[in-house]
Protein backbone atom coordinates (compact mmCIF):
# COMPACT_ATOMS: atom_id res chain seq x y z
CA UNK A 1 0.00 0.00 0.00
CA UNK A 2 1.19 3.47 -0.80
CA UNK A 3 1.46 5.88 2.03
CA UNK A 4 -0.65 9.02 2.14
CA UNK A 5 2.23 11.51 1.63
CA UNK A 6 3.46 9.74 -1.50
CA UNK A 7 -0.01 9.84 -3.07
CA UNK A 8 -0.24 13.47 -2.11
CA UNK A 9 3.15 14.20 -3.69
CA UNK A 10 2.12 12.35 -6.82
CA UNK A 11 -1.04 14.44 -7.12
CA UNK A 12 1.00 17.62 -6.83
CA UNK A 13 3.76 16.42 -9.18
CA UNK A 14 1.46 15.70 -12.12
CA UNK A 15 0.02 19.21 -12.56
CA UNK A 16 3.38 20.82 -11.80
CA UNK A 17 5.22 18.86 -14.46
CA UNK A 18 2.32 19.33 -16.87
CA UNK A 19 2.58 23.05 -16.28
CA UNK A 20 6.33 23.11 -16.82
CA UNK A 21 6.18 21.12 -20.05
CA UNK A 22 2.89 22.10 -21.57
CA UNK A 23 2.71 25.83 -20.96
CA UNK A 24 5.66 26.71 -23.22
CA UNK A 25 4.29 24.38 -25.82
CA UNK A 26 0.85 25.90 -25.61
CA UNK A 27 2.43 29.31 -25.96
CA UNK A 28 4.24 28.25 -29.13
CA UNK A 29 1.07 26.87 -30.65
CA UNK A 30 -1.04 29.87 -29.71
CA UNK A 31 1.47 32.32 -31.08
CA UNK A 32 1.81 30.36 -34.30
CA UNK A 33 -1.88 30.98 -34.91
CA UNK A 34 -1.68 34.74 -34.46
CA UNK A 35 -0.94 37.50 -36.90
CA UNK A 36 2.06 39.75 -36.52
CA UNK A 37 0.43 42.53 -34.51
CA UNK A 38 -1.11 40.26 -31.94
CA UNK A 39 2.02 38.09 -31.67
CA UNK A 40 4.17 41.08 -30.84
CA UNK A 41 2.30 41.43 -27.54
CA UNK A 42 3.74 38.06 -26.45
CA UNK A 43 0.81 37.22 -24.21
CA UNK A 44 -1.43 34.27 -23.59
CA UNK A 45 -4.43 35.68 -25.39
CA UNK A 46 -6.62 33.67 -27.77
CA UNK A 47 -5.69 34.24 -31.47
CA UNK A 48 -7.83 36.83 -33.23
CA UNK A 49 -8.13 34.78 -36.33
CA UNK A 50 -6.80 31.64 -37.97
CA UNK A 51 -3.46 32.70 -39.41
CA UNK A 52 -1.56 29.43 -39.11
CA UNK A 53 -1.72 28.52 -42.78
CA UNK A 54 -0.54 31.95 -43.92
CA UNK A 55 2.25 31.82 -41.38
CA UNK A 56 3.38 28.39 -42.56
CA UNK A 57 3.41 29.43 -46.20
CA UNK A 58 5.41 32.50 -45.39
CA UNK A 59 7.89 30.64 -43.20
CA UNK A 60 8.48 27.95 -45.79
CA UNK A 61 8.89 30.30 -48.74
CA UNK A 62 11.03 32.89 -47.01
CA UNK A 63 14.45 33.48 -48.55
CA UNK A 64 13.90 31.30 -51.53
CA UNK A 65 12.54 28.25 -49.70
CA UNK A 66 15.41 28.23 -47.28
CA UNK A 67 13.54 26.10 -44.76
CA UNK A 68 13.33 23.21 -47.21
CA UNK A 69 17.07 23.29 -47.93
CA UNK A 70 17.59 23.50 -44.20
CA UNK A 71 15.45 20.45 -43.60
CA UNK A 72 17.41 18.52 -46.19
CA UNK A 73 20.70 19.65 -44.69
CA UNK A 74 19.61 18.85 -41.17
CA UNK A 75 18.40 15.42 -42.23
CA UNK A 76 21.70 14.60 -43.92
CA UNK A 77 23.64 15.93 -40.95
CA UNK A 78 21.53 14.03 -38.44
CA UNK A 79 21.42 10.72 -40.27
CA UNK A 80 25.15 10.72 -40.96
CA UNK A 81 26.17 11.80 -37.50
CA UNK A 82 23.90 9.24 -35.87
CA UNK A 83 24.69 6.25 -38.07
CA UNK A 84 28.46 6.58 -37.96
CA UNK A 85 28.85 6.82 -34.17
CA UNK A 86 26.39 3.99 -33.64
CA UNK A 87 28.42 1.61 -35.81
CA UNK A 88 31.86 2.84 -34.80
CA UNK A 89 31.08 3.14 -31.10
CA UNK A 90 29.60 -0.34 -31.02
CA UNK A 91 32.70 -1.70 -32.74
CA UNK A 92 35.08 0.10 -30.41
CA UNK A 93 33.02 -0.95 -27.41
CA UNK A 94 33.09 -4.54 -28.66
CA UNK A 95 36.86 -4.60 -29.04
CA UNK A 96 37.42 -2.81 -25.74
CA UNK A 97 35.13 -5.14 -23.85
CA UNK A 98 36.41 -8.33 -25.44
CA UNK A 99 40.11 -7.87 -26.01
CA UNK A 100 42.29 -7.08 -23.05
CA UNK A 101 45.57 -5.49 -24.04
CA UNK A 102 47.90 -3.19 -22.22
CA UNK A 103 46.64 -0.30 -24.36
CA UNK A 104 43.16 -0.50 -22.88
CA UNK A 105 43.96 1.89 -20.05
CA UNK A 106 45.30 4.53 -22.42
CA UNK A 107 42.38 4.11 -24.82
CA UNK A 108 39.88 4.48 -22.03
CA UNK A 109 41.65 7.57 -20.84
CA UNK A 110 41.46 9.08 -24.33
CA UNK A 111 37.76 8.33 -24.53
CA UNK A 112 37.16 10.01 -21.21
CA UNK A 113 39.27 12.93 -22.36
CA UNK A 114 37.06 13.23 -25.43
CA UNK A 115 34.11 13.49 -23.10
CA UNK A 116 35.64 16.06 -20.79
CA UNK A 117 37.84 18.39 -22.83
CA UNK A 118 35.70 21.33 -23.93
CA UNK A 119 35.41 21.85 -27.67
CA UNK A 120 37.53 24.73 -28.95
CA UNK A 121 35.77 26.56 -31.77
CA UNK A 122 38.50 28.67 -33.33
CA UNK A 123 41.14 25.93 -33.69
CA UNK A 124 38.45 23.66 -35.09
CA UNK A 125 37.63 26.26 -37.73
CA UNK A 126 41.32 26.54 -38.61
CA UNK A 127 41.53 22.81 -38.92
CA UNK A 128 38.41 22.63 -41.08
CA UNK A 129 39.75 25.41 -43.32
CA UNK A 130 43.07 23.61 -43.50
CA UNK A 131 41.52 20.41 -44.78
CA UNK A 132 39.02 22.28 -46.93
CA UNK A 133 35.88 21.22 -45.11
CA UNK A 134 34.88 24.56 -43.67
CA UNK A 135 31.43 25.58 -44.78
CA UNK A 136 30.68 22.14 -46.16
CA UNK A 137 28.31 19.67 -44.62
CA UNK A 138 31.03 17.01 -44.16
CA UNK A 139 32.84 19.10 -41.59
CA UNK A 140 30.02 19.34 -39.05
CA UNK A 141 29.23 15.66 -39.66
CA UNK A 142 32.74 14.77 -38.54
CA UNK A 143 32.47 17.17 -35.62
CA UNK A 144 29.15 15.77 -34.43
CA UNK A 145 30.53 12.26 -34.80
CA UNK A 146 33.52 13.21 -32.69
CA UNK A 147 31.32 14.76 -30.02
CA UNK A 148 28.98 11.78 -30.00
CA UNK A 149 31.54 8.97 -30.01
CA UNK A 150 32.94 8.96 -26.45
CA UNK A 151 29.61 8.75 -24.71
CA UNK A 152 28.32 6.11 -27.12
CA UNK A 153 31.47 4.04 -26.69
CA UNK A 154 31.12 4.08 -22.92
CA UNK A 155 27.46 3.13 -23.21
CA UNK A 156 28.16 0.27 -25.61
CA UNK A 157 31.16 -1.05 -23.77
CA UNK A 158 29.25 -1.30 -20.52
CA UNK A 159 26.43 -3.12 -22.26
CA UNK A 160 28.65 -5.51 -24.23
CA UNK A 161 30.36 -6.49 -20.99
CA UNK A 162 27.02 -7.93 -19.87
CA UNK A 163 26.74 -10.16 -22.96
CA UNK A 164 28.30 -13.51 -22.04
CA UNK A 165 31.50 -14.22 -23.88
CA UNK A 166 30.38 -17.77 -24.53
CA UNK A 167 27.97 -16.34 -27.08
CA UNK A 168 30.90 -15.07 -29.13
CA UNK A 169 32.68 -18.35 -28.66
CA UNK A 170 29.67 -20.39 -29.72
CA UNK A 171 29.48 -18.28 -32.86
CA UNK A 172 33.20 -18.71 -33.52
CA UNK A 173 32.81 -22.46 -33.20
CA UNK A 174 29.84 -22.22 -35.57
CA UNK A 175 32.24 -20.71 -38.07
CA UNK A 176 31.72 -16.99 -37.58
CA UNK A 177 34.50 -14.60 -38.50
CA UNK A 178 34.97 -11.52 -36.32
CA UNK A 179 32.70 -9.41 -38.51
CA UNK A 180 30.01 -12.08 -38.40
CA UNK A 181 30.24 -12.18 -34.62
CA UNK A 182 29.84 -8.44 -34.49
CA UNK A 183 27.12 -7.91 -37.06
CA UNK A 184 25.08 -11.06 -36.53
CA UNK A 185 25.37 -11.65 -32.79
CA UNK A 186 26.52 -8.57 -30.92
CA UNK A 187 24.92 -5.73 -32.87
CA UNK A 188 21.41 -7.24 -32.82
CA UNK A 189 21.70 -7.78 -29.09
CA UNK A 190 22.67 -4.15 -28.65
CA UNK A 191 19.37 -2.95 -30.11
CA UNK A 192 18.05 -1.40 -26.86
CA UNK A 193 21.22 0.63 -26.43
CA UNK A 194 21.26 1.52 -30.09
CA UNK A 195 17.74 2.90 -29.93
CA UNK A 196 18.56 4.99 -26.90
CA UNK A 197 21.65 6.16 -28.67
CA UNK A 198 19.81 7.01 -31.88
CA UNK A 199 17.19 9.06 -30.07
CA UNK A 200 19.56 10.93 -27.80
CA UNK A 201 22.06 11.60 -30.54
CA UNK A 202 19.60 12.47 -33.30
CA UNK A 203 17.58 14.86 -31.18
CA UNK A 204 20.82 16.42 -29.99
CA UNK A 205 22.23 16.89 -33.48
CA UNK A 206 18.95 17.99 -35.03
CA UNK A 207 18.43 20.60 -32.35
CA UNK A 208 22.05 21.71 -32.32
CA UNK A 209 22.23 25.43 -32.94
CA UNK A 210 25.77 26.47 -32.09
CA UNK A 211 27.84 23.99 -34.09
CA UNK A 212 26.12 24.67 -37.44
CA UNK A 213 26.28 28.36 -36.57
CA UNK A 214 30.06 28.23 -36.24
CA UNK A 215 30.93 25.76 -38.94
CA UNK A 216 28.24 26.24 -41.59
CA UNK A 217 28.16 29.88 -42.60
CA UNK A 218 25.98 30.91 -45.52
CA UNK A 219 22.38 30.36 -46.48
CA UNK A 220 22.99 27.38 -48.74
CA UNK A 221 24.20 25.31 -45.83
CA UNK A 222 21.77 26.41 -43.15
CA UNK A 223 20.28 23.81 -40.84
CA UNK A 224 16.80 24.12 -39.43
CA UNK A 225 17.92 25.70 -36.20
CA UNK A 226 19.64 28.46 -38.14
CA UNK A 227 16.42 29.34 -39.96
CA UNK A 228 15.18 30.78 -36.68
CA UNK A 229 17.38 33.74 -37.42
CA UNK A 230 15.28 34.56 -40.45
CA UNK A 231 12.57 36.09 -38.34
CA UNK A 232 14.55 37.52 -35.53
CA UNK A 233 16.53 40.67 -35.74
CA UNK A 234 17.44 43.43 -33.44
CA UNK A 235 14.72 45.79 -34.69
CA UNK A 236 12.04 43.74 -36.25
CA UNK A 237 11.06 40.34 -34.99
CA UNK A 238 8.02 38.54 -36.44
CA UNK A 239 7.06 36.46 -33.45
CA UNK A 240 4.20 34.72 -35.21
CA UNK A 241 6.56 33.46 -37.94
CA UNK A 242 9.30 32.66 -35.46
CA UNK A 243 6.96 30.46 -33.43
CA UNK A 244 5.50 28.85 -36.54
CA UNK A 245 9.04 27.99 -37.52
CA UNK A 246 9.72 26.56 -34.09
CA UNK A 247 6.54 24.51 -34.37
CA UNK A 248 7.57 23.11 -37.74
CA UNK A 249 11.08 22.10 -36.69
CA UNK A 250 9.86 20.52 -33.47
CA UNK A 251 7.85 17.98 -35.41
CA UNK A 252 10.68 15.65 -36.59
CA UNK A 253 12.24 15.09 -33.13
CA UNK A 254 8.77 14.55 -31.78
CA UNK A 255 8.11 11.87 -34.41
CA UNK A 256 11.44 10.16 -33.67
CA UNK A 257 10.59 10.18 -30.03
CA UNK A 258 7.09 8.80 -30.49
CA UNK A 259 8.36 6.12 -32.84
CA UNK A 260 11.13 4.85 -30.58
CA UNK A 261 9.51 5.65 -27.26
CA UNK A 262 8.71 2.08 -26.30
CA UNK A 263 12.22 0.95 -27.13
CA UNK A 264 13.86 3.73 -25.18
CA UNK A 265 12.25 2.63 -21.97
CA UNK A 266 13.34 -0.93 -22.68
CA UNK A 267 16.85 0.30 -23.41
CA UNK A 268 17.12 2.21 -20.18
CA UNK A 269 16.21 -0.81 -18.09
CA UNK A 270 17.74 -3.57 -20.21
CA UNK A 271 20.73 -5.13 -18.55
CA UNK A 272 19.54 -4.06 -15.13
CA UNK A 273 18.00 -7.47 -14.66
CA UNK A 274 19.44 -10.55 -16.28
CA UNK A 275 16.82 -11.88 -18.70
Amino acid sequence: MKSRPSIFLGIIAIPVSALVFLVPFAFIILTAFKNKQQATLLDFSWPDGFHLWNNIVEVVTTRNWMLLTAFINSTILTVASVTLPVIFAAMVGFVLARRKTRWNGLIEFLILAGLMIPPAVVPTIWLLQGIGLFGKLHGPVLIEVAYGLPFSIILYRAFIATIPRELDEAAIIDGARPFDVFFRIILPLLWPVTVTNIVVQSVGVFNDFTNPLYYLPGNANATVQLTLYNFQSQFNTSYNLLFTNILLITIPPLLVFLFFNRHIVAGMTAGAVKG
Partner: protein
Amino acid sequence: MAGLELKSLRKSYGEVEVIKGVDLNVEHGEFVVFVGPSGCGKSTLLRMIAGLEEITGGDLFIGDKLCNDVEPRDRGIAMVFQSYALYPHMSVYDNVGFGLKLAGAPTDVRDRKVREAARILQMEHLLDRKPSQLSGGQRQRVAIGRAIVRQPEVFLFDEPLSNLDAALRVDMRMELSKLHHDTGATMIYVTHDRVEAMTTADKIVVLNAGVVQQVGSPIELYQRPANLFVAGFIGSPKMNFVELTVEKLGPDSVTVSGKDIGPTTVPADPTSLKPGDTVTPGIRPHDLTDQSSGNLVGEVSLVERLGNETNVSLRLPSGAARLAVLDGDHELRIGQSLPLAFAPDRAVIFNKSGIALHRK
Protein backbone atom coordinates in the same frame (compact mmCIF):
# COMPACT_ATOMS: atom_id res chain seq x y z
CA MET B 1 37.28 -40.22 -39.29
CA ALA B 2 39.09 -38.27 -36.67
CA GLY B 3 40.87 -39.30 -33.57
CA LEU B 4 42.88 -36.86 -31.53
CA GLU B 5 46.42 -36.76 -30.40
CA LEU B 6 47.73 -34.41 -27.73
CA LYS B 7 51.49 -34.24 -27.39
CA SER B 8 52.82 -32.62 -24.20
CA LEU B 9 50.22 -29.89 -24.54
CA ARG B 10 50.83 -26.87 -22.33
CA LYS B 11 49.00 -23.71 -21.44
CA SER B 12 50.11 -20.82 -19.28
CA TYR B 13 48.41 -17.59 -18.39
CA GLY B 14 51.42 -15.34 -17.97
CA GLU B 15 53.49 -16.90 -15.22
CA VAL B 16 50.90 -19.43 -14.15
CA GLU B 17 51.02 -22.80 -15.87
CA VAL B 18 47.55 -24.29 -15.96
CA ILE B 19 48.06 -27.30 -18.23
CA LYS B 20 51.39 -28.91 -17.57
CA GLY B 21 52.18 -31.18 -20.46
CA VAL B 22 49.25 -33.42 -21.35
CA ASP B 23 49.80 -36.48 -23.54
CA LEU B 24 46.68 -38.19 -24.73
CA ASN B 25 45.49 -40.39 -27.54
CA VAL B 26 41.85 -40.51 -28.48
CA GLU B 27 40.72 -43.06 -31.04
CA HIS B 28 38.06 -42.22 -33.58
CA GLY B 29 34.58 -42.77 -32.17
CA GLU B 30 35.65 -42.91 -28.56
CA PHE B 31 33.67 -41.30 -25.77
CA VAL B 32 36.32 -39.71 -23.60
CA VAL B 33 35.51 -38.03 -20.31
CA PHE B 34 37.75 -35.54 -18.54
CA VAL B 35 37.20 -35.55 -14.80
CA GLY B 36 38.98 -33.81 -12.00
CA PRO B 37 38.38 -31.41 -9.16
CA SER B 38 37.30 -27.84 -9.82
CA GLY B 39 40.05 -25.67 -11.28
CA CYS B 40 42.21 -28.56 -12.47
CA GLY B 41 42.12 -27.36 -16.08
CA LYS B 42 39.44 -29.53 -17.69
CA SER B 43 37.69 -26.65 -19.41
CA THR B 44 40.98 -25.11 -20.42
CA LEU B 45 42.12 -28.33 -22.06
CA LEU B 46 38.80 -28.68 -23.87
CA ARG B 47 38.92 -25.09 -25.04
CA MET B 48 42.43 -25.63 -26.34
CA ILE B 49 41.12 -28.51 -28.42
CA ALA B 50 38.28 -26.29 -29.63
CA GLY B 51 40.67 -23.52 -30.56
CA LEU B 52 39.19 -20.98 -28.18
CA GLU B 53 42.32 -20.95 -26.09
CA GLU B 54 45.75 -20.48 -27.55
CA ILE B 55 48.16 -23.38 -27.11
CA THR B 56 51.40 -22.28 -25.46
CA GLY B 57 53.32 -25.51 -25.95
CA GLY B 58 53.10 -28.96 -27.49
CA ASP B 59 51.17 -30.23 -30.49
CA LEU B 60 47.50 -30.92 -31.07
CA PHE B 61 46.52 -33.28 -33.87
CA ILE B 62 42.92 -33.71 -34.94
CA GLY B 63 42.72 -36.53 -37.43
CA ASP B 64 46.20 -36.36 -38.88
CA LYS B 65 46.28 -32.60 -39.08
CA LEU B 66 48.38 -30.43 -36.81
CA CYS B 67 45.77 -28.03 -35.47
CA ASN B 68 47.69 -25.71 -33.16
CA ASP B 69 47.07 -22.67 -35.32
CA VAL B 70 43.97 -23.77 -37.20
CA GLU B 71 40.84 -21.65 -36.79
CA PRO B 72 38.08 -23.29 -34.75
CA ARG B 73 35.77 -23.45 -37.78
CA ASP B 74 38.32 -25.51 -39.70
CA ARG B 75 38.93 -28.07 -36.98
CA GLY B 76 35.82 -30.13 -37.65
CA ILE B 77 34.61 -29.75 -34.10
CA ALA B 78 31.41 -28.63 -32.42
CA MET B 79 31.08 -27.57 -28.84
CA VAL B 80 28.26 -27.49 -26.32
CA PHE B 81 28.68 -25.03 -23.49
CA GLN B 82 27.59 -25.34 -19.90
CA SER B 83 25.52 -22.15 -20.21
CA TYR B 84 24.12 -23.38 -23.58
CA ALA B 85 25.15 -20.04 -25.13
CA LEU B 86 22.11 -19.86 -27.41
CA TYR B 87 21.75 -16.70 -29.47
CA PRO B 88 18.92 -14.94 -27.63
CA HIS B 89 17.66 -12.93 -30.60
CA MET B 90 17.26 -15.90 -32.93
CA SER B 91 14.58 -18.53 -33.05
CA VAL B 92 15.49 -22.13 -32.33
CA TYR B 93 15.45 -22.77 -36.06
CA ASP B 94 17.95 -19.99 -36.71
CA ASN B 95 20.07 -20.99 -33.74
CA VAL B 96 20.44 -24.49 -35.09
CA GLY B 97 20.92 -23.29 -38.67
CA PHE B 98 23.36 -20.48 -37.89
CA GLY B 99 26.50 -22.48 -38.62
CA LEU B 100 25.11 -23.73 -41.93
CA LYS B 101 24.07 -20.22 -42.89
CA LEU B 102 27.59 -18.94 -42.23
CA ALA B 103 29.00 -21.79 -44.26
CA GLY B 104 26.77 -20.68 -47.14
CA ALA B 105 24.71 -23.85 -47.35
CA PRO B 106 21.75 -23.57 -49.77
CA THR B 107 18.44 -22.85 -48.06
CA ASP B 108 16.87 -26.21 -48.86
CA VAL B 109 19.88 -28.16 -47.58
CA ARG B 110 19.89 -26.06 -44.44
CA ASP B 111 16.20 -26.55 -43.91
CA ARG B 112 16.51 -30.30 -44.31
CA LYS B 113 19.41 -30.58 -41.90
CA VAL B 114 17.83 -28.36 -39.27
CA ARG B 115 14.61 -30.36 -39.38
CA GLU B 116 16.55 -33.60 -39.28
CA ALA B 117 18.41 -32.47 -36.15
CA ALA B 118 15.14 -31.30 -34.61
CA ARG B 119 13.64 -34.70 -35.31
CA ILE B 120 16.54 -36.55 -33.70
CA LEU B 121 16.29 -34.40 -30.61
CA GLN B 122 12.47 -34.39 -30.58
CA MET B 123 12.16 -30.64 -30.65
CA GLU B 124 10.33 -30.08 -33.93
CA HIS B 125 7.53 -28.26 -32.11
CA LEU B 126 10.00 -25.78 -30.62
CA LEU B 127 11.56 -24.52 -33.84
CA ASP B 128 9.74 -21.18 -33.90
CA ARG B 129 10.40 -20.27 -30.30
CA LYS B 130 13.03 -17.96 -28.91
CA PRO B 131 15.50 -19.40 -26.37
CA SER B 132 13.88 -17.38 -23.60
CA GLN B 133 10.68 -19.36 -24.13
CA LEU B 134 12.35 -22.72 -23.48
CA SER B 135 12.99 -24.73 -20.35
CA GLY B 136 16.52 -25.64 -19.31
CA GLY B 137 16.29 -29.12 -20.80
CA GLN B 138 14.91 -27.79 -24.06
CA ARG B 139 17.68 -25.20 -24.29
CA GLN B 140 20.17 -27.98 -23.81
CA ARG B 141 18.60 -29.86 -26.69
CA VAL B 142 18.89 -26.81 -28.91
CA ALA B 143 22.54 -26.44 -27.96
CA ILE B 144 23.14 -30.08 -28.87
CA GLY B 145 21.12 -29.63 -32.06
CA ARG B 146 23.34 -26.73 -33.02
CA ALA B 147 26.31 -29.04 -32.62
CA ILE B 148 24.94 -31.98 -34.57
CA VAL B 149 23.77 -30.11 -37.69
CA ARG B 150 27.37 -29.33 -38.42
CA GLN B 151 28.15 -33.05 -38.54
CA PRO B 152 31.48 -32.57 -36.79
CA GLU B 153 34.15 -35.23 -36.42
CA VAL B 154 34.58 -34.36 -32.79
CA PHE B 155 32.00 -33.19 -30.27
CA LEU B 156 33.19 -31.23 -27.27
CA PHE B 157 30.97 -30.93 -24.20
CA ASP B 158 31.82 -28.72 -21.25
CA GLU B 159 29.67 -29.85 -18.33
CA PRO B 160 26.58 -29.79 -20.53
CA LEU B 161 24.24 -31.25 -17.94
CA SER B 162 25.26 -29.43 -14.80
CA ASN B 163 22.46 -26.88 -15.04
CA LEU B 164 19.76 -29.53 -15.24
CA ASP B 165 17.88 -31.16 -12.41
CA ALA B 166 18.84 -34.67 -11.39
CA ALA B 167 16.10 -36.56 -13.23
CA LEU B 168 16.58 -34.67 -16.48
CA ARG B 169 20.31 -35.16 -16.21
CA VAL B 170 19.90 -38.92 -16.23
CA ASP B 171 17.64 -38.71 -19.30
CA MET B 172 19.99 -36.43 -21.19
CA ARG B 173 22.95 -38.59 -20.26
CA MET B 174 21.30 -41.56 -21.88
CA GLU B 175 20.39 -39.47 -24.88
CA LEU B 176 23.99 -38.39 -25.29
CA SER B 177 25.12 -42.00 -25.14
CA LYS B 178 22.57 -42.80 -27.81
CA LEU B 179 23.72 -39.87 -29.91
CA HIS B 180 27.26 -41.12 -29.60
CA HIS B 181 26.16 -44.55 -30.69
CA ASP B 182 24.14 -43.21 -33.64
CA THR B 183 26.62 -40.69 -35.01
CA GLY B 184 29.75 -42.69 -34.26
CA ALA B 185 31.61 -39.41 -33.77
CA THR B 186 34.38 -38.84 -31.29
CA MET B 187 33.14 -37.16 -28.14
CA ILE B 188 35.05 -35.41 -25.44
CA TYR B 189 33.09 -34.64 -22.37
CA VAL B 190 34.05 -32.61 -19.33
CA THR B 191 32.34 -33.23 -16.04
CA HIS B 192 33.07 -33.31 -12.37
CA ASP B 193 30.26 -35.75 -11.74
CA ARG B 194 31.92 -39.12 -11.21
CA VAL B 195 28.77 -41.09 -11.88
CA GLU B 196 28.35 -39.33 -15.22
CA ALA B 197 31.95 -40.19 -16.01
CA MET B 198 31.67 -43.83 -15.01
CA THR B 199 28.42 -44.45 -16.88
CA THR B 200 29.11 -42.75 -20.19
CA ALA B 201 32.82 -43.04 -20.83
CA ASP B 202 34.79 -45.45 -22.97
CA LYS B 203 37.84 -43.83 -21.53
CA ILE B 204 38.26 -41.58 -18.53
CA VAL B 205 41.04 -39.05 -18.21
CA VAL B 206 41.62 -38.02 -14.61
CA LEU B 207 43.22 -34.60 -14.30
CA ASN B 208 44.61 -32.90 -11.27
CA ALA B 209 46.30 -29.51 -11.25
CA GLY B 210 46.91 -29.62 -14.98
CA VAL B 211 48.52 -33.05 -14.98
CA VAL B 212 46.96 -36.28 -16.27
CA GLN B 213 46.82 -38.72 -13.37
CA GLN B 214 45.55 -41.74 -15.24
CA VAL B 215 43.84 -42.68 -18.47
CA GLY B 216 41.76 -45.81 -18.72
CA SER B 217 38.37 -47.43 -18.89
CA PRO B 218 36.05 -46.75 -15.96
CA ILE B 219 36.48 -50.25 -14.52
CA GLU B 220 40.23 -50.11 -14.89
CA LEU B 221 40.32 -46.87 -12.93
CA TYR B 222 38.07 -48.35 -10.30
CA GLN B 223 39.97 -51.58 -9.87
CA ARG B 224 43.51 -50.53 -10.64
CA PRO B 225 43.91 -46.84 -9.75
CA ALA B 226 47.39 -45.61 -10.52
CA ASN B 227 47.76 -43.47 -7.45
CA LEU B 228 46.09 -42.22 -4.31
CA PHE B 229 44.49 -39.29 -6.12
CA VAL B 230 42.69 -41.46 -8.67
CA ALA B 231 41.77 -44.00 -6.00
CA GLY B 232 40.22 -41.27 -3.90
CA PHE B 233 38.54 -39.54 -6.83
CA ILE B 234 36.92 -42.47 -8.63
CA GLY B 235 34.29 -44.48 -6.83
CA SER B 236 31.67 -43.36 -4.40
CA PRO B 237 31.76 -43.39 -1.43
CA LYS B 238 35.42 -42.60 -1.29
CA MET B 239 38.02 -45.33 -0.82
CA ASN B 240 39.29 -45.88 2.73
CA PHE B 241 42.98 -45.35 3.33
CA VAL B 242 44.76 -46.82 6.34
CA GLU B 243 48.39 -46.26 7.19
CA LEU B 244 50.11 -49.58 7.95
CA THR B 245 53.59 -51.00 8.29
CA VAL B 246 55.13 -53.64 6.06
CA GLU B 247 55.78 -56.84 8.01
CA LYS B 248 56.92 -59.31 5.43
CA LEU B 249 57.42 -59.42 1.69
CA GLY B 250 56.31 -62.34 -0.47
CA PRO B 251 57.13 -62.91 -4.17
CA ASP B 252 54.05 -60.95 -5.26
CA SER B 253 52.42 -59.99 -2.03
CA VAL B 254 53.00 -57.82 0.99
CA THR B 255 52.00 -58.58 4.55
CA VAL B 256 50.97 -55.46 6.41
CA SER B 257 49.75 -54.79 9.90
CA GLY B 258 49.10 -51.87 12.18
CA LYS B 259 47.01 -50.59 15.02
CA ASP B 260 43.77 -51.00 13.15
CA ILE B 261 44.30 -54.20 11.20
CA GLY B 262 45.96 -57.42 12.15
CA PRO B 263 48.55 -58.96 9.83
CA THR B 264 47.03 -59.28 6.38
CA THR B 265 48.64 -60.42 3.16
CA VAL B 266 47.69 -58.25 0.19
CA PRO B 267 48.74 -59.00 -3.38
CA ALA B 268 51.10 -56.27 -4.58
CA ASP B 269 54.42 -55.67 -6.27
CA PRO B 270 56.94 -55.80 -3.42
CA THR B 271 60.08 -54.86 -5.34
CA SER B 272 60.43 -51.34 -4.03
CA LEU B 273 59.50 -52.15 -0.43
CA LYS B 274 61.34 -53.44 2.59
CA PRO B 275 59.98 -54.55 5.95
CA GLY B 276 59.27 -51.62 8.25
CA ASP B 277 58.17 -49.26 5.45
CA THR B 278 54.94 -47.36 5.85
CA VAL B 279 52.38 -48.03 3.13
CA THR B 280 48.77 -47.04 2.59
CA PRO B 281 46.39 -49.77 1.56
CA GLY B 282 43.16 -48.56 0.05
CA ILE B 283 39.97 -50.49 0.70
CA ARG B 284 36.69 -49.66 -1.00
CA PRO B 285 33.77 -49.23 1.41
CA HIS B 286 31.84 -51.80 -0.62
CA ASP B 287 34.55 -54.42 -0.10
CA LEU B 288 34.09 -54.44 3.67
CA THR B 289 31.77 -57.09 5.09
CA ASP B 290 30.69 -57.65 8.64
CA GLN B 291 32.16 -60.90 9.91
CA SER B 292 32.83 -61.76 13.50
CA SER B 293 36.19 -63.16 12.41
CA GLY B 294 37.14 -59.86 10.74
CA ASN B 295 40.46 -58.35 11.64
CA LEU B 296 39.39 -54.73 11.32
CA VAL B 297 37.43 -53.69 14.38
CA GLY B 298 35.89 -50.26 14.78
CA GLU B 299 33.33 -48.42 16.82
CA VAL B 300 30.15 -47.45 14.99
CA SER B 301 29.76 -43.65 14.93
CA LEU B 302 27.02 -43.15 12.33
CA VAL B 303 24.56 -45.41 10.55
CA GLU B 304 22.61 -44.60 7.38
CA ARG B 305 20.07 -47.27 6.49
CA LEU B 306 19.02 -47.13 2.87
CA GLY B 307 17.19 -50.47 2.86
CA ASN B 308 19.22 -52.23 0.21
CA GLU B 309 22.46 -51.25 1.87
CA THR B 310 23.72 -49.69 5.06
CA ASN B 311 26.39 -47.02 5.27
CA VAL B 312 28.36 -47.29 8.48
CA SER B 313 30.92 -44.78 9.70
CA LEU B 314 33.45 -46.32 12.03
CA ARG B 315 36.07 -44.97 14.34
CA LEU B 316 39.15 -47.18 14.37
CA PRO B 317 41.39 -47.69 17.40
CA SER B 318 43.95 -45.30 15.91
CA GLY B 319 41.28 -42.59 15.84
CA ALA B 320 40.89 -42.63 12.05
CA ALA B 321 37.37 -42.62 10.61
CA ARG B 322 36.32 -45.20 8.02
CA LEU B 323 33.27 -45.88 5.95
CA ALA B 324 31.80 -49.25 5.18
CA VAL B 325 28.87 -50.02 2.91
CA LEU B 326 27.24 -53.25 3.99
CA ASP B 327 24.84 -55.19 1.83
CA GLY B 328 21.27 -55.39 3.05
CA ASP B 329 19.78 -53.85 6.12
CA HIS B 330 21.64 -53.94 9.41
CA GLU B 331 20.44 -52.80 12.77
CA LEU B 332 23.42 -51.24 14.45
CA ARG B 333 23.75 -49.19 17.58
CA ILE B 334 25.97 -46.15 17.69
CA GLY B 335 28.91 -46.93 19.91
CA GLN B 336 28.85 -50.68 19.43
CA SER B 337 31.99 -52.32 18.11
CA LEU B 338 31.81 -53.93 14.72
CA PRO B 339 34.32 -56.40 13.31
CA LEU B 340 34.79 -56.17 9.56
CA ALA B 341 36.56 -58.33 7.05
CA PHE B 342 37.72 -57.55 3.51
CA ALA B 343 38.96 -59.61 0.63
CA PRO B 344 42.71 -58.81 0.56
CA ASP B 345 42.91 -59.14 -3.22
CA ARG B 346 40.49 -56.25 -3.63
CA ALA B 347 42.76 -53.91 -1.66
CA VAL B 348 45.38 -51.73 -3.33
CA ILE B 349 48.69 -50.86 -1.71
CA PHE B 350 50.10 -47.37 -2.21
CA ASN B 351 53.69 -46.52 -1.34
CA LYS B 352 54.70 -43.43 0.56
CA SER B 353 54.61 -41.19 -2.48
CA GLY B 354 51.10 -42.35 -3.30
CA ILE B 355 51.89 -44.61 -6.28
CA ALA B 356 49.91 -47.84 -6.50
CA LEU B 357 51.94 -51.07 -6.32
CA HIS B 358 49.79 -53.35 -8.43
CA ARG B 359 50.76 -56.96 -8.82
CA LYS B 360 52.39 -57.43 -12.20
